[in-house]
């Protein structure tokens, strides 16, 4: 019995309701937090930061956001790219308009603005359901991208329509702009990730989360037992877009440094984040992390193996990489449709029984 739950009794409901009720889990969680905050920043380099860690952290936030909407509230959205763009452009406008205000506040405000936009585009969800809604959210995706491309005010009338993140500091450390060190960028993203995960966890374990899940599982029954579908869906769209907006803001300001809306926030982004959520596990915050890690790491890993180790020509490698990614997605869906999170849970269940088969 490697992993045990038995004997881990709770004597209060507060204990029972905590995030990691099992001691072993809790210890693991603290260990990861310790490494992430106190060790990684000192060993991080440019490559690890930009190729792996920053995208992982930023996409984790976006996945948490989308997971709230899709995984918890059951509203499938393909507008993530567009909402990330809102976050990015909002933070850009704020950063350039109010240079003296802290960028952290800008990012939070950008999230807030995105939340409002998300709510506006979420309104049709009251009538439209399932895939119809999914396709309808593409309207948001395409419209927003077009808007940011079209209206010069959004990109401060720059000749090419690109936006560039100016340098901003937090506690004297540059976190945006080319001079920002990898560890500063990493730490600010990490901060937002922890914040996002914590808030998401709080919301999903409480009554709001239950309303969302009720709407997801059976919206009519939910309404009959007293869930107001309007407020449940709109809070889901709002919270989800808030996180997605923060992710968009970080992606632009901290990670990329410059962006063009059609390229950086196209429909592929929407699919990518949705993939993370589904591969990771719908309705699981851990799953959001797992999904983000999987889809950020997998291509990098494949590329390094196929090109670096096997020495294949890059184009062949790239095409085969597509095939492998596609095949792996299918494979994972077949093995465990409920995602990596469920797989992890099953492993734990197996471990609990170990060495007995059931």
């Amino acid at each position, binding site marked *: 019995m490697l992993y045990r739950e038995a004997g881990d009794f709770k004597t209060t409901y507060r204990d029972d309701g905590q995030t990691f009720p099992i001691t072993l889990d809790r210890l693991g969680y603290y260990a990861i937090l310790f490494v992430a905050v106190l060790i990684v920043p000192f060993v991080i380099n*440019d*490559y690890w*930061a*930009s*190729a792996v860690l920053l*995208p992982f952290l930023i996409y984790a936030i976006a996945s948490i956001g989308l997971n709230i909407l899709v995984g918890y509230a059951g509203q499938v959205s393909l507008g993530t790219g567009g909402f990330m763009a809102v976050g990015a452009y909002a933070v850009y406008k704020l950063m*350039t308009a109010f240079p003296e205000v802290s960028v952290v506040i800008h990012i939070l405000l950008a999230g807030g603005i995105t939340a409002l936009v998300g709510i506006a585009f979420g309104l049709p969800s009251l009538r439209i359901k399932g895939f119809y809604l999914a396709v309808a959210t593409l309207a948001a995706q395409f419209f927003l991208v*077009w808007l940011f*491309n079209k209206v010069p005010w959004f990109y*401060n009338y*720059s*000749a*090419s*329509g*690109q936006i*560039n993140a*100016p*340098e901003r500091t937090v506690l004297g450390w540059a976190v945006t*702009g*080319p*001079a920002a060190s990898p560890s500063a960028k990493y730490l600010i993203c990490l901060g937002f990730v922890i914040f996002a995960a914590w808030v998401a966890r709080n919301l999903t374990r409480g009554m709001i989360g239950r309303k969302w899940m009720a709407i997801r599982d059976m919206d009519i029954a939910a309404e009959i037992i007293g869930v107001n579908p309007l407020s449940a869906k709109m809070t889901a769209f709002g919270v989800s877009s808030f996180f997605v907006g923060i992710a968009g803001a970080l992606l632009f300001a901290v*990670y*990329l*440094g*410059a*962006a*063009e809306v*059609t*390229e*950086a926030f196209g429909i*592929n982004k929407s699919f990518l984040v949705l993939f993370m959520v589904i591969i990771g596990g719908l309705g699981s915050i851990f799953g959001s992390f797992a999904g983000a890690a999987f889809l950020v790491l997998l*291509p*990098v890993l494949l*590329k390094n193996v196929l*090109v670096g180790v096997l020495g294949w*020509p*890059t*184009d062949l*490698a*790239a*095409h085969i990489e*597509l095939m492998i990614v596609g095949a792996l997605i299918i494979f994972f869906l077949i093995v465990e449709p409920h995602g990596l999170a469920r797989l992890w849970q099953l492993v734990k269940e197996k471990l609990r029984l170990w060495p007995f088969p059931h």
Partner: protein
Amino acid sequence: ELIVPNLSYRTGPYGANGTQYADGFNDYFTLLNERDGGIGGETISVPECETAYNTEKGVECYEATKDGALVFNPLSTGITYQLIPKVGVDKKVLYTPGYGRTSAKNGKVFEWVFNAPANYWDGASVAIKYLLDENGGDLNGKKIALVYHNSAYGKEPIRTLQELAKKHGFTLTEIPVEAPGQEQKSQWLQIRRDKPDYVLMWGWGVMNQVAIQEAANIRFPMENFIGIWWAGSELDVMPAGEGANGYKALTFNGVGMDYPIYDDLKTHVIDTGKASQGGEHVGSAVYSRGMYAAVVIAEAIRKAQELAGTSAITPEQLRDGFEQLDITPERLAEIGLPDFGPEIKLSCDNHGGSGMARIQQWDAAEKKWNLITEFMEPDAEVLDPLIAEDSAAYAQEAGVTERSCN
């Protein structure tokens, strides 16, 4: 060993073009390594990294290949914008021939970026110059339509063309096409109604093929249809078949196989099986452009070695090499590419060269491009203030102080 990463894209919507370009780029360095043992005794290593024309993968590729690298050529305006601030900090050269940020021509602001021999504004100006020549120097009252990819890339020439329209008295209609651009019926119906005298096109990928097909469909006179160099490959015209005959495009490099260098390429690279992708695309328009980019980089390296007195140069030294680069027609002939490109003479404040370009025209029967003009100069009078203005804006936004070039 000198490292010149090749941030290429061989997949995705623009993969077909990216492949040809990357092949040309690789093959030229392979030729130098095989034939001359590299440059100045240093072999050139060209690690390739697939960006899929995607900015994030571009950044990853940049970071992955950064160590020891001298110069980057990402062939994507989006990735270029990403890298411009980064190369300043990392001190790497960014070479973006015929794409990227136009105002990077101003070396005082963009210390590490070079975009010789020509940029989009040059292209726009040369196209108008050509039309002026065709019309006896007068475009007054003419209607010119610009069909463009609705992105940073496509929007680049608008400012210039507007200025030129003021100057020469033609009217400019802007017709954006949303990427990817498979469906352009509205745009071409509009052209059919408006009957512009000329159509200019800033397109990329499938947009080009469809535009050329639609132009043929409405029987727009192909000789009045001029594309930027990225809308001037065989790939763009072939699907329209006969209909594309007479279509014109700008180019800043020679086309076709009538250059001595191809003999060397054949003996040293293609026949030895070392060609990138088996040499399928040798001689195509985009291949030639990739090769040309490699030629310029190689020349800059040569120059830098000369200046630094060492063969193992650093990126700083390469920058100096670029800034003193002078590719004369004689030198081009020596390389085996006579009249292949314009003369390139760069300096500390001019990172963009002369901006000359020429026109090529498609012959559908022969399935080849013919060069129909000599290199033409852009209109510096119009362009210089624009460049000054845009680079100043960037300098202010990014907090860069202009360096002095004396």
